[in-house]
């Protein structure tokens, strides 16, 4: 064992994006602490410097991500992480989500009267942890990364202390999150035991492993991740947390946590190798998740809650590729479907939540169907953005949501999981109903009472524009991203 620390260039490159994110977060905290209170506009101002720092940091991180693209290095930091296209793809999505959220956050938080460095700081700490999670290849770093991002997310969920829902949601999230961490950790312990003392993902597939420990261990780990992505029956926290969180935090959570978790889950599952029983079980979970998520969303009047259930449903769709790659002879390339789906999901979900954020009334989120009635007249741009998001979530063509579903369902059918695709499709039909409801409210109804007209800040505008254009562009010209996603799953480090 060498006594001095060796720090290779590859390791540096690999860790750079998350390092930049962490540093940005820290910087924002410091800046805010140093000059935040002296800001002439105080809380009411947009605190542009926070936003700008965030944007700069995210862009830098993105650049760092892009700079290293091409070379793949595995087993960095003694196997703690690997720098591969798979991780970079997920990291890219996460950073993009963070960027858009930051961009939108300025005006939104200022309007809520809650604009502080903590929001941005936690956002970036969480994002850094997520990026690391997506790149992690051993159980310890996965665990710690998960916990780090979870903590950040718990706090963001309870960010607005003056809302009771916020505290309640944060608490629920925390308790259940810690509970699930217990299971995840137990699973990791079993995996550790089953492999004969290795925590490296690449050893999970060891043919000499202890079967029962390994099976139970992987199941417990999967349960931990199922909780994170909100799969039934580990979903109970999702609606309450989304409803309680400030809209932007909810959107970021929905996307970034899902991306990071699915990336890690896919990495684990790919490393673990074929397991028919797990595939069957996950298939069942996926079915239940799709059905319950969509059905429960049907009668929601609270938009955030509706989006939460929709998020559950989408986790169900996202589980399909995981199921597809699991059995003996499963198609490993199917995981590309999940990646692409997530990229699309990023745009749609951030778009939807940002639209809600743009519509806040006073210091509350505007999150009821009632509140967006007649919106098409008040805020045409926001209405268009929200509609596009809804249409994309519903999976209607010319939006990225359709392409994602096409990709995922196609792989499912191709690998003999027609029934999963069938259920996915049937539930999609159901989902159309509730995704249309906001559109109906915005376009077909007139406002029930003259709501105060608030002009969304430029950051929100920009975010909405980006997401809307992105939804359409990726819906029409998805090839580049799809190729990228396929490319990135060819060689997944573990």
């Amino acid at each position, binding site marked *: 064992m060498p006594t001095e620390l060796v720090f290779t260039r590859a390791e540096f490159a690999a860790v750079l994006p998350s390092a930049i994110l962490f540093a940005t977060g820290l910087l924002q905290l410091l800046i805010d602490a140093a000059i935040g209170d002296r800001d002439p506009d105080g809380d009411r101002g947009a605190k542009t410097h926070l936003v700008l720092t965030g944007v700069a940091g995210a862009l830098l991180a993105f650049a760092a991500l892009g700079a290293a693209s091409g070379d793949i290095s595995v087993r960095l930091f003694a196997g703690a992480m690997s720098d591969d296209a798979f991780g970079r793809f997920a990291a890219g999505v996460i950073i993009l989500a963070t960027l858009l959220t930051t961009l939108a956050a300025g005006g939104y938080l200022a309007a809520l009267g809650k604009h502080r460095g903590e929001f941005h700081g936690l956002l970036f700490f969480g994002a850094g942890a997520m990026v690391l999670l997506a790149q992690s290849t051993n159980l310890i770093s996965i665990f710690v990364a998960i916990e780090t991002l979870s903590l950040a997310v718990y706090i963001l969920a309870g960010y607005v202390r003056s809302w009771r829902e916020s505290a309640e949601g944060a608490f629920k999230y925390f308790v259940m999150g810690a509970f699930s961490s217990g299971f995840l950790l137990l699973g990791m312990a079993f995996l550790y035991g089953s492999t004969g003392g290795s925590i490296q993902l690449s050893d999970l597939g060891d043919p000499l492993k202890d079967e029962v420990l390994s099976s139970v261990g992987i199941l417990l780990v999967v349960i931990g991740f199922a909780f994170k992505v909100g799969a039934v029956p580990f979903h109970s926290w999702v609606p309450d947390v989304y409803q309680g969180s400030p809209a932007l935090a909810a959107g970021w959570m929905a996307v970034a946590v899902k991306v990071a978790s699915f990336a890690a889950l896919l990495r684990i599952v790919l490393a673990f190798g074929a397991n028919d029983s797990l595939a069957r079980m996950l298939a069942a979970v996926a079915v239940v998740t799709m059905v319950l998520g969509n059905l429960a969303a049907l009668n929601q009047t609270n938009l955030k809650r509706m989006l939460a259930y929709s998020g559950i449903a989408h986790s169900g769709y996202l589980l399909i590729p995981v199921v597809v790659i699991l059995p003996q002879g499963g198609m490993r390339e199917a995981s590309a479907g999940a990646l692409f789906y997530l990229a699309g999901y990023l745009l749609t979900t951030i778009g939807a939540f940002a639209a809600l954020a743009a519509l806040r009334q006073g210091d509350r989120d505007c999150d009821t169907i009632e509140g967006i009635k007649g919106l098409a007249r008040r805020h045409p741009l926001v209405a268009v953005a929200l509609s596009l998001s809804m249409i994309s979530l519903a999976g209607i063509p010319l939006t990225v949501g359709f392409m994602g579903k096409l990709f995922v369902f196609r792989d499912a059918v191709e690998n003999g999981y*027609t029934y999963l695709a069938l259920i996915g499709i049937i539930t999609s039909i159901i989902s159309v109903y509730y995704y249309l409801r906001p559109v*109906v409210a915005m376009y077909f109804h007139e406002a029930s009472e003259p709501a105060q007209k608030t002009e969304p800040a430029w950051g929100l505008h920009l975010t909405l524009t980006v997401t809307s254009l992105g939804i359409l562009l990726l819906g029409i010209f998805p090839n580049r991203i799809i190729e990228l996603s396929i490319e990135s799953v060819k060689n997944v480090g573990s």
Partner: protein
Amino acid sequence: MNSLPILSLIILTPALGALLLAFVDRRNDAVIKQGALMISMITLLLSLTMVIGGFFDGNVGTYQLEENTPWAPALGLAYHLGIDGISILLVLLTTFTMPLVLLSTWRAVSDRVKEYQICLLLLQSGMLGAFLALDLVLFYLFWEAMLVPMYLIIGIWGGKQRIYAAVKFFIYTMIGSLLMFLAILYLWKHTGTFDLPLVLERLRTTHPLASETQCWLFAAFALSFAIKVPLFPLHTWLPDAHVEAPTAGSVVLAGVLLKMGTYGFIRFGIPLFPAGTEAFGPLICWLAIIGIIFGACMALVQGDIKKLVAYSSVSHLGFVVLGLFMFRMGSGKMTDEGVTGAILQMVNHGLSTGMLFLLIGIIYERRHTRELANYGGLAKVVPIYSTFFIIATLSSIGLPGLNGFVGEFLILVGTFKVNMLYAVLASTGVVLGAVYMLTLVKRFLFGPLVHEENASIKDVSTREMVYLVPIVALMVWIGLYPKSFIGLVEPTVLQYLDALK
């Protein structure tokens, strides 16, 4: 010449035009209206150029003017367009209908004009795309994409129950189309391609499908198309959608959108799954026949003019569907009357029902009611209007010399050759059609002028004449000299049937 991507141009012109209109100031109503009209006229000219200018060769039975570029090769998608005798008439119908529809909206819609025109143009792109796509996913994409503008048109500019109708329309259609989507994916699994000609070829040669699988897939496709047609008993969205939609919506819906279903059958359902067709054919034919009679009976007792016409659509489309399935005479022999007639009848129905809806729109604009009971005796007040109305009616009930007859007759001849019982039952629809349409005319136009308000209704204006006269001219043309249309269709149909053998 061949390098000119004329099909893409036809599809994209309205969409790009809509994009252009989006940047026009919304206060500039006139510019928007005229701009939209111009765009649709350009599309019409393009499509006419395609036929007259020698791009399209009517004597060839295969796909023409094909454009095939990879679009998302990673997903197996290609931008594959092509046109043949089956789609040419429908494309022409679409491009022909649109300027008239746009013209008809000039006065009818005053709220959010810009969005309205944009929706209509986008709708047109969607419809054209669906008719021209030769890639299964591309077709699906257009098929779904046109749902959204139509949904908005019904939902925003519709009548009192518009939301219910719009949502019903959307969800009904989605139910079918998503199952079709699944079937498309299954085809991908089986043949490894989404490209229609390739799929057809592989199914025929290297990758034959088991007949049970075919039945399932056909059922999935057929459900989607049957909803769109709509076939009994999946039709209940149609009266609601028609009644609530604004005039332009109804016209497009009746004129073009319903044909998507029948077009789907002929382009995809039947050729892809011959065994499925064999198995489900009788069921679909029976449903079509029930639809013919049931729709007519329903139309008989409606008090709302639009609803009446909507139910008449159910009846008429029943003929079309019936015709599409009537090509196999047993002992390996084919007959093409049914299919050719059905294709022609799609156009005919588009013209006659479209015109009826336009006319209803005209009167609705003036009186703001669609209740039949509020009218009567109009022939005296608005003679020109009444003349147009009667012509449309006659076309709809299939009076020889007008367009409706040719298609209906060919369908029935074809049907009769294949199955006499079907033909006999379907022919009763001819009688019933006269019953309800003439009852409509009688209660609407004839009789004493009961309601004072009706006495001051103005007759059709010049603008309205401008969009009604071309339809009548086309009706007479098809009725008297259908050869120019059948000539475009038949070679393809023969080729098509040959392939089905």
